[in-house]
């Protein structure tokens, strides 16, 4: 599996080159949110706003009112927790094109509960006019900017940083409100987002060898959540639907899928895997994913409960799985 480093830092520079209306705002986390490249390349379009997020969000709204497309970067918690009123009154009400890049989703940071954005999707999803994207791999980080820019109104992006694997083929770009079908199957429909998708790919490969047929979809748009592929996928599995997210199970992907199922009268079981209504604490990603049940082993256990059968899958079986970047639609056809 190919691992890429600091993708947004490079990509933003080339993408923004001929877009003079794009400005970038930072709250003293410039390198940490991979905008130091932009700062060096376009110092006139880079604004250091200090550790003052409420002012930064309202300031961005003012700049948007005069025609700029401000791209605010900081850790996610400092956006939706620190400045929620400003997001509502200054930005979202007026449907202004302020683009909010929130870093450190869920347990992707050892920074502990104050830095871990575990309920950002739930909070932002409840705000009218808001669009919500989440990146799951290198290809999505590389190809998300057009959709962010072209969306009419505010966008919140759950961003990954640092070293990120390429799970999806380079030629298979991010498309808003379109889930990626990573495998086709009939027993269980598995819907995942963000870093959980890699874990689920690992698990579903082993599950196939054990005779469990999994339809796996990767979601990168949380709002709007109207993709017909979701409804189609939740309508048909024999045992039911499992969601898996790096987020509290309340208000995020699991809830989005539950709403689609309930509103369409899909009478199937749903199991939501994620942070089970709990905060986490500081630690390595590996440790936290295991402790809070967000890894591939947790998914296997969940599926075993679902189908009431023990599959005898070991940690080693999962660790030995080699993941290659998939071309989602091609793979879907192949299966």
């Amino acid at each position, binding site marked *: 599996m190919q691992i890429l480093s600091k993708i947004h830092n490079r990509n933003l520079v080339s993408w923004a080159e001929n877009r003079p209306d794009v400005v970038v705002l930072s709250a003293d986390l410039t390198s940490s949110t991979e905008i130091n490249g932009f700062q060096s390349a376009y110092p006139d379009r880079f*604004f250091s706003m*200090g550790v003052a997020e409420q002012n930064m969000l*309202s*300031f961005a709204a*003012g700049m948007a009112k005069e025609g700029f497309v401000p791209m605010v970067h900081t850790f996610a918690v400092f956006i939706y927790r620190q400045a929620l009123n400003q997001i509502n009154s200054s930005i979202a009400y007026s*449907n202004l094109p302020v683009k909010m890049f929130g870093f450190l989703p869920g347990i992707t940071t050892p920074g502990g509960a104050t830095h871990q954005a575990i309920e950002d999707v739930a909070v932002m999803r409840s705000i009218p006019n808001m669009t919500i994207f989440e990146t799951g791999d290198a290809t999505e980080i590389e190809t998300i900017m057009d959709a962010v820019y072209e969306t009419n109104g505010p966008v919140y992006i759950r961003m990954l940083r640092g070293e990120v694997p390429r799970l999806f083929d380079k030629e298979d770009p991010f498309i808003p409100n379109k889930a990626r079908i990573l495998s086709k199957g009939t027993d269980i429909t598995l819907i995942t987002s963000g870093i959980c998708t890699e874990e689920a790919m690992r698990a579903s490969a082993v599950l196939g060898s054990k005779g469990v047929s999994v339809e796996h979809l990767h979601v990168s748009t949380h709002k709007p959540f109207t993709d017909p592929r979701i409804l189609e996928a939740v309508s048909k599995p024999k045992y039911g639907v499992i969601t898996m997210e790096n987020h509290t199970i309340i208000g995020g992907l699991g809830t989005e899928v539950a709403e689609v199922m309930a509103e369409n009268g899909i009478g199937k079981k749903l199991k939501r895997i994620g942070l089970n209504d709990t905060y986490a604490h500081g630690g390595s990603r590996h440790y936290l994913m295991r402790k809070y049940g967000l890894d591939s082993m947790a998914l296997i256990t969940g599926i075993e409960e679902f189908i009431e059968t023990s599959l005898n899958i070991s940690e080693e079986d999962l660790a030995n799985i080699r993941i290659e970047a998939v071309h989602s639609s091609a793979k879907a056809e192949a299966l």
Partner: protein
Amino acid sequence: MKETLHTAEQIRKRVLEHTIKNNGGYLSQACSSAEILATLYLKIMHLGRSLAPMIPPPFPGVPSASNKNYFRGGLYNGPAAPEYDRFYLSPAHYALVLYTTLIEVGRMAPEALDQFNKDGSTVEMIGAEHSPGFDMMGGSLAQTLSQAGGIALTRKKRNEPGKVWVFMSDGEFQEGQTWEAVQTLFHYKIDNLGVFIDINGQQCDGQTCDVMCLDPLEERLKAFGAYTVAVNAHDPEALAHAAQHSHPDKPLFVLCYSDPCRGMPLLEKRKPKLHYVRFTSEAERDEYRKFLNNQFQGV
């Protein structure tokens, strides 16, 4: 300046009439800010002709990607062209005073007030982005200054000659975001922005000095890098002169020390609760009615 003083008296009169008619209103805010708003509109701001109808249209729905009928109340302040100033009133509960000012300076018809606080109207009690004279959501205090800062910074980058004017209340200086905004205005040398603060010393719970002391406000602002001028809020000449100060590389803050009972001594009896006036009896309402008839005869 006689004209400005006269307009300010008209503002007070109309707000008082309205308060009597509706048995309630933000009356003391008219008393404290009438000269500030009259001077801004008549002597300070460079605004184009209103682009809005004299009678405000009904509520167009909230802004969204699909609402093509949406409009902002800033149309009453003329076009948002590079050469013109922008105006943002922050404490949105001053709405009635702003609507009345628009009427007295000929940007809106007096009948507009018939829609005040009526269902389906844009002439709302707490001004919203679509309300006449407003251009953003100021109802949650302290966000307007930051937004106006973003606007001023953008206009400065584009070398636009027009300035940005903000009207604030003193209570907003209790909000942390206000100080975040001031430090940012100083950091980016935003000198195309001027703020008029109505320092009436009053807020919802009573006197500002009892609720949360702001003194010494001028020194605090100076320490944050602002250029400050302190004036009598009821002296149009002083107000207009303050706007002419040269303040290179710094935002201008005009501290307008006002009397929340100015022109209506009857209000003194209600101290220290002046934030919203609702008459407690028909007798009290009558008292104000008599006062209106006597005091504002011929205004």
